[in-house]
């Protein structure tokens, strides 16, 4: 497939065919063999028994749309970073 690239709140999200896919395709291989990149960094994910996606670093929000999940992860990460920044500044102050 052609790589799919989106911008979201200042971050890039890319979905592309995973390199070396042909060698790995086998009978037991799940069909989720797109590579997800956020800001050009690969993000690991998997599929639950009902086919929904979850990210390894953001494992408790599930959807059947990988792009939507990437956007939710970005929102979570930004929110968590802000909370940690506030906590750190509170400890310093």
């Amino acid at each position, binding site marked *: 497939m052609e790589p799919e690239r989106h911008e979201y709140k200042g971050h890039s999200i890319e979905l592309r065919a995973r390199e070396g896919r042909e060698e790995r395709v086998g009978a037991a291989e799940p069909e989720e063999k797109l590579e997800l990149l956020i800001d050009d960094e690969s993000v690991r994910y*998997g*599929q*639950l*028994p*009902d086919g*929904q996606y*979850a990210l*390894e*670093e*953001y*494992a*408790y*929000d*599930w959807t059947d749309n990988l792009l939507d999940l990437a956007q939710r992860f970005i929102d*979570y990460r930004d*929110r*968590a*970073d802000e*909370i*940690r920044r506030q*906590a750190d500044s509170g400890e310093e102050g």
Partner: protein
Amino acid sequence: MGIRKDYRDLTADERDRFVQALKHVKSTGLIDRFAQMHAGHFFMNIHRSSHFLPWHREMLRRFENQLQDFRPAISLPYWNSSAVRSTTSSLWNNGFMGQFNAAWNLGRALGSSTLPTSQLVQTNRGRGTYDVFWSELERFIHNPPHVWVGGEMADIDSPHDPVFYLHHCWIDKLWAMWQLAHPGAPFVASVAGAGLNDPLMEWPNRTPASVIDHHALGYSYDSEN
């Protein structure tokens, strides 16, 4: 029989014993082994599956047994996240769960999501069939606290954070209460291989039938109705 209770009802001695036992099982490598085991099975039959509740019940039982090997009087406490919702609650005091954030490098970001409401919990308790009950419980009551705590707790290896056990103890309590309120409700398999007598991931000699009666496993909850 051990009685699992709300962490807010622990005596100071019980709280200290529990914290010391957690530090002990961290030093033995158990915390990290259980986290890796959970991560290894995350996308298999332990989530989004009718085995979600039995698998975690077995995991908690095994973890609690290890704590009891260190201090026999210990029972897992629970965190009712529909009632204890503040980032400044006593759960997060440095004398209790708070100390582990820096010490174990957990990267928590308390408040990263929205916790389940007591109304949602009440509605879920009224569901009449197991398949509707567990599915709603897992997604809308179990998932949000993982994200709300953030950091390791939001990862597939979330048992790195000891609050995982307090959270799952509450989820197990909700299941126990639902079972007692719906004694005739059969176990409904979500897919083939996830039935009452199918083996649990990691422990092939254990099935949901092995853990269906929590009293037979040697524990009860402070309130079960």
